[in-house]
């Protein structure tokens, strides 16, 4: 199956200059292509640079070496074809839910009444039709994520970048959000690059799971295809035999990295 590539990282290296002049290499080298309509999850231990890689794909960070290609064209500046769902709260706290969703259209020049009407529709499709007038602080963590999802999707980006978007949520809400995401995604199958530290979540959602080694100087060390049938239900798919087999296989690789990452993080604290 060959798909046209939506976003590709080619021999990408990411490094930062630290305050004391040393150079910290977050990602040594990464080679990754996300096809159109493909849902790829990146899994790795804490501090392996998976979010960094996502920022490179978004154009928020420049790679130290290598390049990023979006629809086979080199990326310069921000990735305008991508929508980005952040891990932290990124809604504008001074705008109501509906204004937060509408802003993506308004800045493009869509007349306000039309933008608001479409924002209201999107809020309804993420299950928050009745909460349009609420400010972010009046919504729960899960509701804020729904608004953020609508805020990104209303612009109809061709690529969806997600940085542990459901990380701060409780286990049940995460699963509900996962199902919502799959449901919305199946409507038009955008290319998705989804970063998480939760292997189960990755397998349940994605077409491909990519594993990164523990940082610093991390690299991609594994790439698995998830052949579970779609449409999937996140609650159900976890009980599937295939799911378990795949989980065991990937975990055997990931486990060592998690231990390494943990050892490094405790060492770093000791210094």
């Amino acid at each position: 199956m060959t798909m046209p590539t939506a976003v590709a990282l080619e021999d990408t290296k990411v490094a930062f200059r630290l305050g004391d002049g040393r150079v910290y290499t977050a990602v040594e080298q990464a080679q990754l292509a996300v096809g159109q309509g493909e849902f790829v999850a990146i899994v790795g231990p804490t501090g392996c640079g998976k979010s960094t890689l996502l920022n490179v794909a978004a154009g928020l960070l420049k790679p130290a070496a290598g390049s990023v290609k979006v629809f086979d064209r080199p990326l310069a500046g921000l990735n305008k074809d991508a929508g980005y769902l952040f891990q932290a709260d990124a809604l504008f706290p001074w705008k109501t839910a509906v204004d937060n969703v509408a802003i993506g259209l308004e800045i493009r020049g869509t007349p306000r009444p039309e933008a608001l009407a479409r924002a209201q529709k999107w809020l309804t499709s993420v299950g928050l039709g009745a909460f349009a007038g609420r400010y972010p602080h009046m919504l729960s963590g899960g509701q804020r994520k729904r608004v953020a999802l609508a805020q990104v999707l209303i612009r109809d980006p061709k690529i969806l970048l997600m940085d542990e978007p459901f990380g701060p949520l409780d286990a049940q809400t995460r699963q509900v959000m996962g199902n919502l995401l799959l449901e919305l995604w199946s409507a038009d199958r955008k290319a998705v690059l989804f970063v998480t530290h939760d292997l189960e979540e990755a397998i349940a959602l994605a077409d491909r799971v990519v594993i990164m080694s523990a940082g610093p100087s991390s690299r991609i060390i594994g790439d698995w295809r998830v052949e579970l049938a779609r449409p999937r239900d996140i609650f159900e798919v976890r009980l599937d035999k295939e799911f378990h087999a795949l989980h065991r296989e990937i975990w055997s690789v990931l486990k060592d990295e998690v231990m390494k990452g943990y050892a490094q993080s405790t060492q770093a604290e000791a210094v």
Partner: protein
Amino acid sequence: MSRLTLLSLQLLVAVVAIVLWQVLSTVPVFGKILLPPFFFSNPVDVFSQIVKWFASGVIWKHLWITLWESILAFVIGSLGGVLVGFWFARQPVVAAVFDPYVKMVNALPRVVLAPIFALWLGLGIWSKVALGVTLVFFIVFFNVYQGVKEVSRTVLDNGRMLGMSEQQLMRNVYWPSALSWMFSSLHTSVGFAVVGAVVGEYLGSAAGLGYLIQQAEGVFDVAGVFAGMFVLSAFVLLIDMGVTMVERRLLVWRPTAADGRG
């Protein structure tokens, strides 16, 4: 505690204080009046002075002048603070160059500027407005500066990823953030606008509440001084209530707006 109990307890404090004041300044204790009327006056005199001011209507002119000076000081000071705060926050080089001077001017007790302003701007309202402006400006300036500097990185990145240009970021992210910081210091800056006006009047003017107090003091009219102070406190309380109302409307989106100062 219910609202009613609280209110009655609050009233009780005032009643006890006033009764004590009245008794100690008129009834001798062991043959001695503890609060000599020459220095402390008494509540009845003070109250009748206030009534006289309002009955004759002379007070309105003074109140009006002080209010007008405060408003002008607040508006001009805030405008300057917002503009300069924004400018400095967006131009770190400018901020770094001016930093020691900003600190120097801010460290200066504003009272010493009053004679200068009186010389430059005369004894009319503008010398008082200028004094208020120097107080309001720095509060608003520091808050707006912080507000722009401390815009959440994630919110900013989100704005960029949603396709905002620099100008749209300015309007939709920096500006609301800066304003929210400015509004959070609204009570302080409005209070300082009044302080500037009254202190300016006190040090040299022909009208206003500060002038009224200064005049009474000049002829050892202690009742007049206290009366002026009471009118001033009531005036400030009223303004503060107005500010609270404005704040409730403007900061609805903030989790703390509802349980802020009342």
